[in-house]
C-alpha cells in the first residue's frame, strides 16, 4: 500500500501523510475488499481534482493488476503539468521549433537563485528554448504572489463607511452603554475593471506567448477583466479567460482566434473596439492596458484618434511596449509617436521583472 502511495506521489499526485494513513485504513476495511470499491475509495482520498483522475486510474491499473503490490512499474508519467504542456494548446510561437528532443532539460538541474535572477531579466525574445518552460513556471508563481500581495494591500488601505456594532459596543461599555464613540467597518474595496488589448501580430510573436499568460494571471486580481487580441482584426477572448486551467484557455483561444502572427492594423482594430465594445466595457473607473510594439501599418492619425476616444472613457491608459527594453530604442515609429500623447504611462514589457513592476501601478488603481 505504501508502495503505491509512494508510486503515485512520484507520478505527480499531491499526497501527504494524512492521505497515506487514510489509504492504509481503507485497505484494512473488509467492506471494501472488492477491487473496484477499493479503487473508488482510494480515488476519493488521493485525488484532489478531476484532472487527477486519469493519472490515478492508470497508476492504479499498472500497480495493482500485475501480481502483487510489489511491482515497480516502469511507466513514467510525467507530472500533470508537463503532460498538459505538450497539448496543442500551447499554440503559438515559441512552440514552433520545439521538437520532442528539446524538452529533455531536467528542470531540477537548472534551478537555484542565480538561474532565477537571470531568467527574470532575460528578454522574452532572446530566451533559450530550454528556459521557456522554466520561465513559464517561475512566471506563474511570481504572478500569483503578485496578485495576492495586491489584494492584501488594498484591504487595509481604506477608511470605513459602515458601523461596526460589535466593536462599538465593546468600546462603549465604559460609558455605560451609551454609544459615544463609533467604530466603523471597512467595506471591502471593489476590484476595478481592467481591459487588456494584446497585440498578436507577427512582430510580437516572441512576446505574446508570455504576455498572454500574464493577462491570464491578472484575472485573479480584477473583478472583471476584459481581454482582446488584435492584429489585423480584433477578437474578444474574455470568455476563454474564465476557464481555470491555463492550458485549456490557450487551447480554446487557438480554436477561436485565427488572427495570430499576421500583420498589424492597430488603428483599425481600435476603431472596432470603440464601435463594438467600448460602451459596454469601458466606464470611468476602468484601466486599459495596451500590449503592443506599436509597429503599425495603418495611418498614424487614425491610431491617435482612436486612442483618444479610448482615453476619454478610462481612468488610465497604459501602453506596454516590449521594444522599450532595448537600449537603443526610441519611440520614433510613426504609430508609436502618434500614440504617446494619449498614453498615461509608457513602459517596457520585455522580461519578467518589467511585468512585475506593473504591480506598483495596478495596486494604486
Amino acid at each position: 500500500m505504501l508502495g503505491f502511495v509512494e508510486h503515485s506521489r512520484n507520478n505527480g499526485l499531491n499526497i501527504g501523510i494524512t492521505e497515506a494513513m487514510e489509504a492504509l485504513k481503507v485497505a484494512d476495511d473488509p467492506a471494501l475488499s472488492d477491487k473496484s470499491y477499493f479503487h473508488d475509495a482510494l480515488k476519493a482520498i488521493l485525488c484532489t481534482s478531476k484532472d487527477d483522475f486519469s493519472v490515478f486510474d492508470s497508476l492504479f491499473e499498472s500497480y495493482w493488476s500485475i501480481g502483487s503490490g510489489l511491482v515497480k512499474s516502469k511507466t513514467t508519467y510525467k507530472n500533470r503539468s508537463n503532460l498538459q504542456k505538450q497539448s496543442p494548446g500551447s499554440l503559438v510561437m515559441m512552440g514552433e521549433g520545439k521538437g520532442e528532443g528539446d524538452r529533455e532539460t531536467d528542470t531540477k538541474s537548472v534551478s537555484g537563485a542565480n538561474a532565477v535572477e537571470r531568467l527574470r531579466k532575460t528578454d522574452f525574445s532572446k530566451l533559450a528554448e530550454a528556459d521557456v518552460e522554466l520561465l513559464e513556471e517561475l512566471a506563474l508563481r511570481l504572478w500569483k504572489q503578485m496578485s495576492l500581495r495586491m489584494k492584501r494591500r488594498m484591504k487595509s488601505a481604506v477608511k470605513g463607511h459602515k458601523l461596526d456594532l460589535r466593536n462599538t459596543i465593546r468600546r462603549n461599555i465604559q460609558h455605560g452603554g451609551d454609544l459615544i464613540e463609533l467604530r466603523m467597518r471597512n467595506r471591502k474595496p471593489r476590484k476595478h475593471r481592467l481591459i487588456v488589448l494584446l497585440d498578436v501580430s507577427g512582430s510580437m510573436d516572441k512576446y505574446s506567448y508570455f504576455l498572454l499568460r500574464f493577462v491570464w494571471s491578472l484575472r485573479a486580481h480584477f473583478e472583471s477583466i476584459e481581454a482582446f487580441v488584435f492584429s489585423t482584426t480584433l477578437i474578444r477572448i474574455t470568455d476563454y479567460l474564465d476557464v481555470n486551467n491555463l492550458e485549456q484557455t490557450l487551447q480554446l483561444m487557438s480554436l477561436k482566434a485565427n488572427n495570430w502572427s499576421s500583420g498589424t492594423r492597430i488603428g483599425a482594430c481600435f476603431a472596432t473596439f470603440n464601435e463594438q465594445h467600448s460602451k459596454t466595457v469601458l466606464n470611468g473607473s476602468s484601466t486599459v492596458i495596451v500590449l503592443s510594439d506599436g509597429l503599425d501599418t495603418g495611418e498614424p492619425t487614425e491610431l491617435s484618434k482612436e486612442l483618444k476616444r479610448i482615453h476619454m472613457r478610462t481612468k488610465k491608459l497604459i501602453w506596454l511596449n516590449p521594444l522599450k527594453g532595448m537600449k537603443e530604442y526610441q519611440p520614433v515609429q510613426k504609430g508609436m509617436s502618434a500614440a504617446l500623447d494619449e498614453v498615461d504611462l509608457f513602459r517596457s514589457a520585455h522580461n519578467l521583472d518589467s511585468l512585475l513592476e506593473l504591480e506598483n501601478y495596478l495596486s494604486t488603481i
Partner: protein
Amino acid sequence: MSILTNRESIREAFDTRKYVIDNELSTVVYLMSKLNKPLLLEGNPGVGKTAIAGVLAAALDTRLIRLQCYEGLDVSSAVYEWNYQKQLLSIKIQEKANRSEAEKEEHIFSKEFLMPRPLMQAISESEKPPVLLIDEIDRADEEFEAFLLELLSEYQISIPEFGTVKAVHKPLVILTSNRTRELSDALKRRCLYHWVEYPDFDKEIRIVKKHRPEIDDDLALRMVAVVQKLRGLKLAKTPGIAETIDWVNGLMALGYDELTPDGMDETLGCLLKSTDDIRRVRDHGVDQLVEAV
C-alpha cells in the same frame, strides 16, 4: 448511523428517496463517515450535488444545516453574531447595578447573547450529528475558505470573547463547488473528493422513472435521448438532471404522452435557460432533433 455501515444500505436508503446513486458515490459516502472527513463534490450545475446532502440528511433522519456561500460572505453571517440590541438593553439595565466593568463585559458576552449562524449550529447540535451543507464554496472569498480549515479539521470554532466551542457530535460535512475558481490545496486536502458527472443514458432513464414512475417507457427513452444529444451541442448552459426532470414534468403537465416537435418547442424553456441556446436549438431544428431519436 445505521445506514452508513455499508454501501448496500446506503444505496437502498438513497434509492427509496429517489436518488440513483452509483457505486463510486456510495463508496465515497461510506468513507465520509468511516474516516470522519468532509466530502467535496465538484461537477457541472444541475447534476445533483446539493441534492445528495438533502437525501443523506433525510436518510439519517437528522437535521440538514445549509450554508449558501456568496461573494463577501463573512464570519458574522456564517458562524455567529452577537445580539447587539439585547446587549445594549442589558447594559442599560445594569447601569445602576453594582458590578465592575469586567463583570458587565463578561455578562454581555455570554452565551445568552450569542446568535448562532449555520456553522455554529452545526457543531452545537446536541442530539445527533447533523448534515452540514456548504453550498457553492467557490463563490465565497478566499479568506472564508481559510477560516473553514479550522472548522473542518478540528470541528471547533474559536470566539475571542468567549472561548472555543467544540463539536458535540461531528457533523457530516458536504461541500459543493461549481469550479468557477480553483479551491485552495489546503482545503482540498482536508476533504474527500468526488466529481459528479452528467449521468449516462441508462442512469438518466432510471432517474426519470424514479421521479415519474407513471411515465411511458418510450417517452422517457426519447426524452432522455434528446437531452443527451443536447449535452453534446456546445450550449452556453448545458441542461443538467434538474432540467431533465423539469422538462419531463412540464411535458406531462401539458398532457403530452409522446414526444412531438410541437410539444418540445412549447416546453423548451424547461430545458434551456438562455435565449441564445434556445435560438441555436431552434435553428438546429427541433423537428430534426425529435425525429432523430
